[in-house]
């Protein structure tokens, strides 16, 4: 069964600084990879996804992520963080028809200092 790890439980960055959130997955083939953001008390918003093709994918809100097969990673990046980016970020892995095969990581909470 596939699994997702997000090594950082909580990250704090200063506004304007760059950001990288780590995600590693375990799955035998190339999975479908996703990053979701959840603001406090809110739902899950899709930031970006990777299915195939170019390994560097662009998302909303200035985020990007790079799929590295050799490292089984799909790290999320942003060159300059805004205070409104403070939220919980979830990496997810899916394949087949999802359901049991759509697995979320434990999440990384991002705090942004003014």
């Amino acid at each position, binding site marked *: 069964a596939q699994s997702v790890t997000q090594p950082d439980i909580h990250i704090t960055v200063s506004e304007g600084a760059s950001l990288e959130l780590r995600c590693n997955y375990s799955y035998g083939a190339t999975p479908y990879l996703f990053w979701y953001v959840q603001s406090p008390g809110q739902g899950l918003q899709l930031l970006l996804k990777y299915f195939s093709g170019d390994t560097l994918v662009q998302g909303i809100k200035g985020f990007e992520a790079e799929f590295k097969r050799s490292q089984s990673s799909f790290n999320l990046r942003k060159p300059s963080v805004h205070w409104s980016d403070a939220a919980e970020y*979830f990496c997810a892995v899916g394949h087949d028809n999802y359901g049991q095969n759509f697995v979320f990581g434990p999440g990384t909470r991002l705090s942004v200092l003014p």
Partner: protein
Amino acid sequence: EPEVTQTPSHQVTQMGQEVILRCVPISNHLYFYWYRQILGQKVEFLVSFYNNEISEKSEIFDDQFSVERPDGSNFTLKIRSTKLEDSAMYFCASRSGTSVAGELFFGEGSRLTVL
């Protein structure tokens, strides 16, 4: 832009009571899902639904849970007799049937508090 809508946004109930959480998936979608997130924990799969029947369910989805699509637009999750540990945020999701994968669209969630 089409979206998945969920009601209620927050429900407080007494232990042992029945709860129904409602979802309106995106209209041309064919696959429907419920996930839940206990406070501070990861999002977990509950059940998937396709062609008017459950296609897959997790160990969490025991006999106290049921789902149905009563009228072709709503997709409901019923908890027959709530327990304290059912307190969580419940997310509905849907996707189209045009590809094996495709994007899962999530609703904003229904927060259930069991007292």
